[in-house]
């Protein structure tokens, strides 16, 4: 327990981590509660037709195909609390409704950034969760069992790690053209990402298996499962956590690139970036680029600080060794 507190303390001491945390919160929180910030429908409506909380989530079908006047007519007699931006990410809104301006087709920029953040962060978290589970299992098997299993798993891990992720995404998106784009992207990213985790876990497990405490644990009669869970994995998870934190940045970049190329999901930042290539408007590109850059920077700083903080020796002896 004490170590974890120490890591948190050491991280919180640095100003840039605090700034990065604020930046990340400014992107993640709106992404989670996007409907409270920007939506066509009210947050809360109570009137003769009944009481609705977040009708945009509960019954999106009743708003389908309605323009602004239609939606207002729907809630004419209600007591309604509207979101800050009364405009969804894909609907065209009148001039006055925008907080920070609109793109070429009159869609609100803030709304698009907020919903794009949902797809980017959501995809990264899901894909990394899948990849971590698979990678930890396979890496632990390869490292702990050794011999045949190691031979069978180690080379594929290397090859998958060096295999171009964009090709995997292209193949998967071609094979599932009509299905939900987000899920096929999650699978495609997880399919390449697990190898990195497996490589780290395998190396750590091989190292830990030879440690005296593991031998001692075996000697007093602990089963393989218990040894793995209590004595080896906690040690092996540290580089995995660091790599996963950096992984958020790289997966967000990958997702944006994929959407930029037109293989991804519609509301993504990548789609916004791609709009600036045409003659239409640079506003969407700038907004999407700032959101993407902010996320990547924030994640990178936090991961970097975490990695340093884990290494107690560097953090305490020479502050000058820190990059930032």
């Amino acid at each position, binding site marked *: 327990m004490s170590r974890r507190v120490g890591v948190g303390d050491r991280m919180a001491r640095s100003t840039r981590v605090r700034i990065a945390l604020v930046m990340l919160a400014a992107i993640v929180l709106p992404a989670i509660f996007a409907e409270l910030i920007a939506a066509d429908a009210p947050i809360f409506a109570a009137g003769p037709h009944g009481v609705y909380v977040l009708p945009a989530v509960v019954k999106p079908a009743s708003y389908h195909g309605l323009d602004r006047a239609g939606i207002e007519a729907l809630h004419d007699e209600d007591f309604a609390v509207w979101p800050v931006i009364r405009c969804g990410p894909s609907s065209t809104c009148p001039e006055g409704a925008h907080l920070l301006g609109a793109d070429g087709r009159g869609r609100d920029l803030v709304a698009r950034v907020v919903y794009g953040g949902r797809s980017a962060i959501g995809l990264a978290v899901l894909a990394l969760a899948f990849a971590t589970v698979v990678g930890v299992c396979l890496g632990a098997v390869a490292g702990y069992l050794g011999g045949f299993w190691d031979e069978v798993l180690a*080379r*594929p891990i*290397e090859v998958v790690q060096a295999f171009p992720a964009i*090709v995997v995404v292209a193949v998967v998106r*071609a094979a599932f053209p009509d299905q939900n784009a987000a899920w096929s992207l999650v699978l495609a990213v997880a399919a*390449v990402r697990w190898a990195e985790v497996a490589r780290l876990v395998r190396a750590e497990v091989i190292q830990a298996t030879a440690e005296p405490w593991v031998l001692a644990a075996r000697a007093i009669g602990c089963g393989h499962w218990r040894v793995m869970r209590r004595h080896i994995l906690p040690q092996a998870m540290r580089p995995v956590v660091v790599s996963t934190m950096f992984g958020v940045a790289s997966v967000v970049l990958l997702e944006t690139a994929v959407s930029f190329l037109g293989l991804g999901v519609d509301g993504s930042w990548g789609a916004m970036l791609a709009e600036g290539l045409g003659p239409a408007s640079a506003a969407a*590109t700038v907004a999407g*680029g700032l959101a993407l*850059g902010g996320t990547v*920077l924030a994640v990178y700083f936090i991961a970097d600080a975490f990695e340093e903080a884990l290494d107690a020796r560097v953090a305490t002896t020479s502050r000058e060794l820190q990059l930032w």
Partner: protein
Amino acid sequence: MFRFAFRRLLWLVPSVLGVSLLAFLVLSLLPEPAAPARLDAEQWRRRLAASPLFFEVSPADVRSRVAAEVQRIVAAPAGSPDDTTGQEELARLGGAALPVVLPELDALGPSDRTRVALALAPIAERMGLPNAELATQPQHVVVYWNRFWGARAVEFSPATARSAVRRYARYGTEARAAQLRLLDTFALPYLIEALHLPRETADLTELRRVVGALSAVTGRDDRIRAHVSLGEAGAVVYHWQRWWLVYQDDYVRLTGSGRVAAFVMQSRYGKWVYETVVLRMGLDEQGRPVLDDLLARCRVTLTLLALGLALAYLVAVPLGASAAYLRGRVFDRLAATAVIVPYAASPMLLGALVLHWGAPIGQPMVWAVVTLALALAADPMRQSRAALLPVLTTEYVRASRARGAGPMHVLLVHGLRNALAPVATRMATEMPVAITGCFVLEQIFGLRGVGSATLDAVARHDTRWLMAVALGGSVLAVVALVTSDVAYATLDPRLRSSLLRSGRRRA
């Protein structure tokens, strides 16, 4: 070292195989794979969908097909749709069916015998046999075919067929043509054997004869017209080879090793492997081999990739080294900012900005390389800085400094070699990121590389191109791994012995 590199390169085989199996499995989920150029799309799909994915439990050949058709004719009442289909199919199987069906004719009942023999009439006509009208008369037909087989059975042997094809191709006289016509579809395997890509215009005469004979036998009109270029003639040859890949089990009799190979070769995967290895990865919709297109486009993408990576490392490693030396100073922070900002901006935004301000001047390729290098520099810079830091705080570096060595001496002699080894290993894992960057920048700067073609292929469900790219990706991955391993071992001699032994570690 060479032995080690070679042994690692052998890993190409299983990884390419594994990647192709996986990609094939995923792509087989596609609702409708595109038909190859100039084949009937409907029929192609029916035949393809009928064959299993990886393994054909009971491979078909001309014997099983003829038996099935004869059974169909016998079982169906005369004049029913099944009867008609059976007759048409038997006529299509043609001369290759005769060695199977004629000796068995006597085993059938009298009326069945006549009906089956009558179904062979179109073949007699196609062969240009004398008295072919007898084959359409119920009272003569069985005797007619029995006589035919008694006289001509000798000619239906591989050696005769092969020499007939060779002679016709060489001389092209009417007598040779008649001899070949007599064999009908029995000569198909040997006609396909005689196909080869034309190298000069003189080859075209022979080729034109072979292709003409193929068209006459199969009724599929795809000939080499007069005054065509070598490329167009080559495309026709590809079409026929491709056609043969789909239809060969109708005309070939499987024996021994051929039957064993057919377990795999008659599956969809087996056909794809054959197409990839023998037919240059198959044809795209314009009728060109996919491999040629892939190689041409690879030149653009690989140039961008190699130059971008090289530039990134050339800039980032010295920058990281200087930053490590001047750690904690302003330069350190400036350098870190200078690489992290382009990394966060991503190739998309960088490319868009460069396109906005810079691209009208000069080559798009140059801009793409610079942009890619900028976006990739963060990781090597961080790695080389992190690798150098512990070295610079060692006792021997302090001692060296104390004796009066300058900073350059310390960095170059003590530092860089130690620092480069871990950086080199990152090269292989940087590759996927760099390739994503390549695809994006190709799109932005309008370069005709692998990226744009792959995006097209995804939109058009072009399985062949996607498979080709997946194979290329696995080759690239293995080559990158081997390169980084060799670089690692070269930079750090302590590792050499362990690397060389690693293959036999657990033996």
